[in-house]
């Protein structure tokens, strides 16, 4: 895992992180992933604080955001990003176990770019992650100031 990546994965569950990484490996995207294990760390990364004080000055091409996170939860992170002029252009994809309508509605109201429910089925899960990774990190043209494909 490097300090610079096109994908910022905000996920507190190491098993989910591992499975996500496994899925992304197939497209060699796993080394593009920066993991923040809670909301606070995600904001530290985006604002160059704490252990990310010295990272390079580009924004990730996409943020994969879990909703249920310790300390600062996903919706709060999303709100912080979308209300910051410098960060609001970063595409944010909510990646969650929750199928609850209120989470979905709250996310879209805050300006989320996509909302994906993690499928229980592993194949579907792998496919979903792969497609997300490929679309946002490779196919999608990220906003100016984002990490570019090397």
């Amino acid at each position, binding site marked *: 895992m490097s300090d610079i990546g096109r994908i910022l994965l905000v996920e507190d569950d190491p*098993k989910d992180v591992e499975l996500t990484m496994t899925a992304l490996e197939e497209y060699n995207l796993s080394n593009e992933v920066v993991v923040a294990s809670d909301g606070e760390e995600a904001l530290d990364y985006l604002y160059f604080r704490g252990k990310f004080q010295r990272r390079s000055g580009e924004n990730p091409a996409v943020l994969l955001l879990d909703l*249920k996170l310790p300390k600062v939860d996903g919706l709060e992170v999303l709100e912080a990003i979308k209300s910051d002029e410098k960060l609001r252009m970063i595409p944010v994809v909510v990646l969650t176990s929750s199928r609850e309508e209120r989470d979905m509605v709250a996310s879209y109201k805050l300006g989320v770019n996509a909302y994906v429910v*993690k499928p*229980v089925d*592993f194949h579907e899960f792998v496919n979903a992650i792969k497609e997300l990774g490929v679309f946002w990190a490779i196919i999608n043209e990220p906003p100016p100031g984002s990490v570019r494909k090397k």
Partner: protein
Amino acid sequence: MPRENPLSWRIPAVVQRYGLAVLSVAIATGVANLLYYFHVQGVEFPIFLLAVAITPWYAGTGPAIVSLVLAALAFNYYFTDPRYSLYVTLAEAPYYVVFILFSLLIAWFSALRRRVELNLLQSRDELQREVAIRTQQASLLNLTHDSIFVRDANGTITYWNRGAEELYGWKADEAVGRRTQDLLKTVFPRPFEEIHEELLRTARWEGELEKKKSDGTDVLVASRWSLERDENGNPVAILESENDISERRRREDEIRGLNLQLGRRSTELEATNKELEAFAYSISHDLRAPLRHMVGYTELLQKNAASVVDDKGRRYMTMILEAAQRMGTLIDDLLAFSRIGRAETRETMVSLEQLVKEAQNEVWQETEGRNVTWKIGPLPDLYGDRSMLKLALVNLISNAIKFTRKCQQPEIEIGCTNKRTDGVVVFIKDNGVGFDMKYVNKLFGVFQRLHRADEFEGTGIGLATVQRIIHRHGGQVWAEGQVGAGATFYLSLPKP
């Protein structure tokens, strides 16, 4: 009196009156002469006085004067010397003056007396009329069920209607003459002086009073007072009309109590609902994650370690995956079910026919490769939550398709019976495997299944969902079936 005389309509009144004057004097003359003939002397004078007195009584002043003149002449002619002449000696003159004065006096008294009597009669008639009217009014007051009574300025009861008898248990003859305060032991909501002051100022008062019945029990009445004054403005009577509101008050208290209870219950319910919601939310997030991990790692194991695991081991892995898959479905179904209870209904006019079509389209895949005969009757429009009703129909139709799977000629009928006036009853009938009526009460329970999983798949949440949806619409669901002969599901929905 013309009224007492049957001839009055034939002979003019004036002739009658003067005729009476003449007649009375003539009779007096006759009687006096007759008595004189029988040597009864000295009575002629009172006899003529009698005639003069009778005339004004019945005929008035004019005829009285006529009778006086005639009487004087007749008396002079027949009974003073010289007899049978109208000659009057000087010595007799005072005698006539006395006679005339005396007659006049009697006539005047008579006329006066007559007038008094006439007035009296008139007053009596008026009084009778008044009494008749009052009696009628009083009996009208007796017709009302409201208690009405009148008390004078001292608080003594002067009138007491039947309503008051019924309300307080005192008869009119027991109540009239008693003081209200002694009889009814009224408890006033505020000082009596204030009430009295208001009554004097506005001539009316109303409020709620506590009184005692004759049997000692308390009664709460809504009381309205109105004040009657005499022509000088002094208060003379107070009319109180009242009705018993004890029962009403009791019910109001009861309702207030129930409302309070209801408020508490609904607060509790709200809290429970919140908890449930948090619970469901937690399941949604937390229960699914480990499941996903189980599946994920098992899949990875399958992929990476397939070569080092034998057939038995591979089968175990498959079993783990299947079990996890099923648990995933159960969690999803349970969450969907709990959502129906929590979600707000958005009611609109819904075409049931359209909804059935949409539901059919949704389950179309399940009928693929099978020859299902559909019989869909005319269906009404009704008021309800479109998406919820559709979910109910999808569940029922999907069930019908599932349980006719083993049929040669599967047939599904959807229709509406118009037996009830208060709503519509829709039925979904199939000729599938049916069920034993013994277990009908288990049919709509959560996670209740009447078939083994290897016969018919499912989590047992479908009919529970249907029931919950229909209950939320104020309707009912029930079913009839027979093993091997199909099942019919009914749902009643209230009319808009």
